[in-house]
């Protein structure tokens, strides 16, 4: 019997558990290295060369180069570590969080000012599957007309 992971049922959310942390160890430690100003300079001068010094997967390195935070979270990154990349780039937490939602920076900020993303319809995976299926059905109906 495996470990109980009830949080796998939450949509749009990756819990940084021991398995994710194991997968992301080198990625997160790379991020941590950017707390040092000299390392930030070396990284900015040649990102690829700096990344190649770390025992990271190619997928993780590409995720850093692309600043694809969703890909980095999926491969074991944690937002508080990934924030060091944002700090190096001069991005805020709000810009980083917003970048993962598929929304524009302005739309995300407006959503937050209006009270944030509601929990309604965002608790369980099936609620998102349902919403996606409905959207698909509507699109297909539209196409048939």
């Amino acid at each position, binding site marked *: 019997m495996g470990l109980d992971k*009830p*949080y796998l049922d939450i949509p*749009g959310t*990756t819990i*940084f558990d021991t398995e994710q942390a194991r997968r*992301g160890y080198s990625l997160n430690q790379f991020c941590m290295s950017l*707390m040092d100003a000299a390392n930030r300079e070396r990284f900015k001068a040649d990102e690829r060369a700096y990344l190649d010094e770390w025992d990271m997967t190619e997928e993780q390195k590409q995720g850093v180069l692309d600043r694809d935070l969703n890909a980095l*979270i999926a491969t074991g990154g944690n937002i508080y570590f990934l924030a060091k990349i944002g700090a190096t780039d001069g991005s805020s937490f709000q810009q980083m969080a917003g970048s993962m939602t598929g929304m524009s920076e302005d739309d995300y900020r407006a959503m937050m000012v209006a009270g944030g993303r*509601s*929990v309604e319809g965002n608790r369980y995976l099936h609620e998102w599957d349902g919403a996606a299926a409905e959207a698909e059905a509507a699109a297909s109906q539209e196409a048939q007309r």
Partner: protein
Amino acid sequence: MTARITSTVYTSHVPAIGAAMDHGKTDEPYWAPLFEGYEPSRAWMADNTPDVIVLVYNDHATAFSLDIIPTFAIGTAAHFPVADEGWGPRPVPDVVGAPELASHIAQSVIQQDFDLTIVNRLPVDHGLTVPLSLLFGQPDAWPCPVIPIAVNVVQYPVPSGRRCLELGKAIRRALSSYDDDLNVQVWGTGGMSHQLQGMRAGLINRDFDSEFLDRLVADPEGLADMPHIEYVREAGSEGIELVMWLIARGAMADLAGEGPAPEVVHRFQHVPASNTSVGHLVLREPA
């Protein structure tokens, strides 16, 4: 006389709040309502400054990388520098510790079966400094020493609400065996609802937050049994920080059978600060 807990303070510790203060933006329309909400507590705090604050917070990949992840850590140093989190250190005073009392707490609490990690080199990040800024403003030096208690809420599994409440009770017992007439506050920080990652980023649940505040005051024992999954599902992946508030609540007299329920000095909620729902509470022991 021994050290005694006179009140507990709870607040979110959003980094953007610190940045707003550091960059003189507190009067801007976005920020003004938030800072107004802390005014009553600042005034109260000026008249009720403690001798020592035991400040429960979490480190955000600042002092602790993935090399070592203590579930509960206590800072026993005389001095804690303000960390550079990547944007440069906040322009706030360094934090002065209370090594003698902190060592006493460590010895007592470990003997009560809580495996505290003892830390003497601890650069403190926004998790600790933003609450100080919110309650004390921008002084040249913080008005009293601080004992940091760092809790792992970054890597899952984090400690349960129950264990946090019980740690608060253990800290209370530790203080009651310290032979010095000290007025101590315990602060619980972090939260409230927020999620900083994934397609669900930006989640806010104000109803959850309000009920959490209600129950923290009136039903802390029941609240301590809330499972992790409920925090995460209802309050977002980073909303789990709220378990830290239970440490401060656990340190109050009513839960030790030593006094009546606490009085609410001030309660405040505001949405948003950056990505986060802000909550704040000051509770005091009845005179």
